[in-house]
């Protein structure tokens, strides 16, 4: 192959690769992200789907509820899904005194029997963040009780 032919082939490959990227990349509100938003809403923050509704009371149906028994999540480790910028509400009920910590956002709240730990904040950082029980951690047990998953908006 001649030198010009080689460079032509490289140029063609670059064009194809760039074009494919532009076509494949989802836009801001095409079907793909819509689907993900819908699946998000099934787990958390229905506020995003019903923006006109009055603000639900804290600890209402909009909050993700996590129940701990002896520092362990009753329903296993769940994902709390959110999109960047969404408000997030998490309520952790515990049958014993505990301290719950959300990594990355670095928020800690006390939980006691009858006094759940309530979290309310905006999902400003993208990524997957561990939510842990400090008491379990001190006892040397598996501290992970849930994960906060924040997708780009």
């Amino acid at each position, binding site marked *: 192959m001649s030198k010009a032919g080689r460079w032509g082939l490289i140029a063609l490959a670059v064009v*194809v690769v760039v074009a494919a990227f532009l076509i494949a*990349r989802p836009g801001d509100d095409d079907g793909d992200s819509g689907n993900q938003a819908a699946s998000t809403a099934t787990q958390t923050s229905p506020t995003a789907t019903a923006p006109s509704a009055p603000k639900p009371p804290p600890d209402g149906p909009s909050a993700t509820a996590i129940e701990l028994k002896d520092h362990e999540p009753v329903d296993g480790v769940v994902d709390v899904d959110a999109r960047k910028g969404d408000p997030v509400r998490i309520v952790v009920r515990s049958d014993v005194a505990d301290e719950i910590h959300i990594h990355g956002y670095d928020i800690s709240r006390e939980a006691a029997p009858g006094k759940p730990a309530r979290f309310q904040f905006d999902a400003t950082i993208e990524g*997957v963040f561990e939510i842990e029980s400090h008491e379990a951690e001190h006892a040397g047990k598996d501290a992970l009780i849930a994960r906060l998953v924040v997708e780009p908006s």
Partner: protein
Amino acid sequence: MIEIAHGIVGRSDLPIPEWLFGWAAAVVLVVSFVALAVLWPEPKLSRASFRPLPGLSRVLHSPPVDLLCGLAGVLLLVLTVYAGFEGSQTPTANFAPTFVYVIFWLGLVGLSVLLGNVFKAFNPWRALGRAVSWIARTAARAPMPAPLSYPERLGHWPAAAGIFLFAALELASSDGDTPQTLAIAALVYSVIQFVGMALYGVEEWTERGDGFSVYFALFARISPWGTRDGVIGLRPPLAGLADFRPLAGTVPLLAVMIGSVTFDGAAEAPIWTGMAPDISDFFQTLGLSPEKALELTFLVGLIAAIAIVYGFYTLGVRGAQSVGGGFTTRELSRAFVASLVPIAFAYVAAHYFTLLLYQGQAILTLSSNPFGFLASNPLGEVGTDIFGTADRSIDYGVIGATSAWYWMVGFVVVGHVAALTLAHDKALTIYSDVKLAVRSQYWMLAVMVGFTSLALWLLSQANQ
């Protein structure tokens, strides 16, 4: 699910989205076929130019610079060990875990690729070895040759073992991120280095037997900065790998390097999180405690990942051997091993990019307060604020998930292109017949596409 690895951070990456995975996989194929068509018919990298920079070389190799760098390395080692024993045992509060696993283990990889073999200057074991040998020589007023010559059979095997043990400590041990464990590990490693240097000579051992020296020096060969006849100079990137001479154990070392990152990635994937509890239960029925059973499970997973990487590469080499040319599997295996170095870099860069970017910031806080004690506590332990940065927190806004995805995929694709280029160049130098060289490259191409696809798949499997 039990988190062992990287207990020091509570954040991890989102998996790359499906469309990006598909696009990147397509790019890998396009790149590979274009490469076959357009790559040069004469070896180029192996005969690359080298521009010596004697001025720079004189400054960097001058005794004061040498001494200062060595001293800095020794001080950091001492600080790591001291903080590990005496400081807070909370992994995130103590200097040792973040320094060892993030700044040293990951940061130096990036630095080596950009600036060449920086670690050689700061290597604390080499610095101490040279100091001791200088004192001994001065006292004896005679040259002190090493008692043994480094055996050829040993090659890179001690380095492969060292990196494997470090990976096992990081990924399989349940208290691998405990400051005290790290301090003990650093001391044990130091003792082994001193014994090796005493037996075979400081430079002889360091270049082959010290796992970290070998590890960083391999990545430094990607960089345009190199040394020839003791003079620092510039060369085309990757040319250092074209000149690389593999030893016994080099291929297993690369398998450990790629396999350990593979395992770390796969450990978050459903394939492993589904399997691990069963394996762990099996070990418990054999009478192991739950913790030991889990550690053993992860060790088995780590070894399996390394074996898979080794097996896959060997398979490709056997294929290349089948096209003819009269080479043994071992000769070919060693000939092409340098092309795995950019792949290993792509694995490390893609997998740990955000960890370095985020957790790396913590070193500012930790260097101000290396022991990690609070301002004051009932035991009388007092926190410090040496540089006034002890209260800094990690800024998670430095990069968004979308940009991080593009960087990760970028590393993987660029690593793939570099690996293909190197393998192609090497084939042209070892095969007398260009046609045979190209035919052998179908097999190496399959190996590279396999490793690259695995890297992309791991990125798409994170935290599923």
